[in-house]
């Protein structure tokens, strides 16, 4: 075990073993990390299920059923393609349609049987959770052989995606499995250490820590998703415009972007968040502004490269319209690199969001958010209440780790030039 773990700290000491043994350790570490994250998430869900019997277990069982259905369908699709010994370019729509209908009907029926007071809400959670869990299982089943051909970057990407989907699944079904409402104060004693009735302890306000850890991912993921969408939809077009037009337009936009780039990211985000005030959307915008320049830079430089390629010139020679050249010739060849930035941006956005809440510029106190628990837990760490900051901190690290691994993996898969 100690030998395996020493693989992480390879650069600290001189390596004695061969590269083969060494890379085996590397694989083992990645595998262990992935399993560890999935186990932590599974353990959190399991603990809260034992604490609150009833609807929670039905949700988990139901989503599991749906995920297994899609897994079976996937293996069926795979098998009907194999005898022809050729890859069909068009996906098989019929089985997918059947599965979707099955998803909808099952969720509604289960909703009316199990939870008649709110069947629609139950159904929505079933479908959303089922989809996320399907993605998780499909990644293991289908993605592993597919990404394995990409070598170690493929493995990195897939373990990152597994971690992220596991946490997303937990967040999606959070409302139905938490033992207590994450917002209610005084459900237990103040700063109770972990004990059988409160497995992760309670906060300074007497909220249940377990519920807050499970539900706290929602704001984090929302902020990250919104900020990435905003960044992407602003950074990529202006990068395209700047790279394609060049000249004065490029110089002007470049100057603005460079001056944004000059600020340290977190400081700029704090400044903007302080101006805009609290709220999920405002946090997302503050983070987006910080990351627009990196999209802009990457897209612009890629456009400069692609613009000079012979096929773009050939299109100009054949009298193609500007918009065709931009959107059919340049954009599709630029997108892969901006997708890479996107996945790295996700990890950064989560850390920045946690940082913003930590300095008190995030959300109101009653909302379950890992960043808030970190702040409040940090203040009471001195009296020995380690559990308040430790568990949310761990979750932030795991989510950021998942996104970073995904980003690093996709980076090498989608930009083949790096491999040459």
């Amino acid at each position, binding site marked *: 075990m100690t030998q395996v773990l020493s693989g992480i700290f390879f650069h600290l000491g001189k390596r004695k073993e061969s590269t083969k043994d060494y890379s085996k350790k590397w694989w083992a570490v990645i595998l262990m990390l992935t399993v560890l994250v999935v186990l932590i998430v599974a353990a959190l869900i399991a603990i809260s299920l034992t604490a609150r019997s009833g609807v929670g277990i039905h949700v988990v069982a139901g989503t599991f059923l749906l995920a297994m259905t899609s897994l079976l369908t996937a293996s069926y699709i795979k098998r009907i393609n194999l005898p022809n010994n050729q890859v069909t370019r068009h996906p098989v729509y019929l089985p997918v349609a059947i599965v979707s209908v099955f998803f909808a009907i099952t969720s509604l029926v289960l909703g009316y049987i199990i939870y008649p007071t709110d069947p629609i809400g139950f159904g929505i959670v079933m479908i959303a959770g089922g989809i996320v869990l399907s993605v998780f299982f499909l990644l293991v089943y289908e993605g592993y052989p597919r990404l394995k051909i990409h070598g170690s970057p493929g493995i990195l990407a897939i373990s990152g995606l597994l971690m992220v989907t596991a946490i997303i699944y937990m967040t999606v079904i959070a409302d139905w499995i938490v033992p207590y409402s994450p917002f209610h104060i005084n459900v237990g004693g103040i700063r109770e250490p972990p004990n059988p009735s409160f497995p992760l302890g309670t906060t300074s306000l007497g909220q249940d820590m377990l519920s807050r850890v499970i539900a706290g991912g929602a704001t984090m993921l929302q902020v990250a998703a919104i900020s990435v969408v905003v960044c992407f939809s602003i950074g990529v077009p202006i990068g395209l415009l700047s790279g394609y037009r060049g000249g004065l337009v490029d110089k002007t936009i470049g100057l603005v972007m460079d001056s944004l780039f000059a600020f340290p990211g977190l400081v700029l985000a704090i400044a903007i968040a302080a101006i805009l005030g609290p709220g999920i959307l405002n946090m997302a915008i503050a983070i987006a502004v910080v990351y627009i320049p990196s999209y802009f830079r990457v897209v612009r430089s890629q456009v400069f490269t692609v613009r000079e390629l012979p096929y773009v010139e050939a299109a100009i020679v*054949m009298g193609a319209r500007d918009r065709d050249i931009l959107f059919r010739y340049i954009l599709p060849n630029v997108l892969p690199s901006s997708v890479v930035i996107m996945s790295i941006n996700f990890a950064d956005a989560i850390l920045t969001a946690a940082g913003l809440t930590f300095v008190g510029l995030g959300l109101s106190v009653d909302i379950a958010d890992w960043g808030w628990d970190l702040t409040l837990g940090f203040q009471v760490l001195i009296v020995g209440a380690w559990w308040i900051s430790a568990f949310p901190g761990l979750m932030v690290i795991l989510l950021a780790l998942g996104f970073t691994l995904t980003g690093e993996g996709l980076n090498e898969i989608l930009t083949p030039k790096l491999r040459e």
Partner: protein
Amino acid sequence: MVDVLRIKDLIVEYTTQRGTARAVDRVSLTLGENRTLGLAGESGCGKSTLGRSLMKLVPYPGKIVSGDIILNIDHDITWKKGTIKKGDVSILELNDDQLRMIRGSEIAYIFQDPMTSLNPMLSIGKHFIQIQQAHDPTIEDEQALERAKEVLESLGILAERVDDYPHQFSGGMRQRVMIGLGLVLRPRLLIADEPTTSLDVIVEAQILEEMAELKEKFNLTMILITHNLGVLAQTADDVAIMYTGRLAELAPTEALFENPQHPYTEALLQSVPDVTKPDKKLAWIPGAPPDLVNPPDGCMFNPRCPFAMDICKQEEPPLIQSDTGGLVACHLYGRS
């Protein structure tokens, strides 16, 4: 016979940090309908720059300094924002929008490297649809695909392959697709810039043959830019030999190959290996082309010319009528 293209005293210059290099220097050419003109010369003699300036697409930092390029158009071109009347049109006076309509529909250009000249993200059919709709937005996708299939079939590519992507084609087939893309809008003038250089000889022969057939079928006038003199002997009606941006010799193909006038042409022909004379020692041209930023006085070829005379170092030879029915720029002639 109508002159499809007339080039008058065209000068193209590249501005570099060291100074100005004249890549095309006072070139005048006339190209009759259905003729094939071969442009030959060694690397850097300005033949590709000349080809590109015909579409007003000289790469930066190049600039067309003076001269005129007149293209004859046999029908009115009308589109949303304007029209171009039929008759003689000066390419250099057209604006970007008008140029875009001329490119592809009147002048087609085929590049040297077919491997990278197709967008890897678009299927072959999409290429055809997009090019046709760029010139006539009213064309439906199906209609455009029908025409694409027709052109591809005439080039020996199966019609059902329109849905395939460029990486599924070999180099020769990609060059056929490029030729098809050039011809789908029925242009009058086809400029082929070393179309077969990156292909092997068998495919090269096939493609040259197909191009000759297509020339008849589509009523094309062609400019073939190459440094392979054998290709020109096979396909061209007239051959222009360029040296350092100037025309050295322009003559009907047979006359040029049988009776080269300019010492440079002669030296070029000498340096082609001949399989029928295995004992012959391969000749070469000593020296290298001059620096275009600081060109030598007089005739540009004088430092390498075996017949160089005193006058060659002082005066630039004018382009004069030669005995074989062509034009030649050399002091050896016309002084009797």
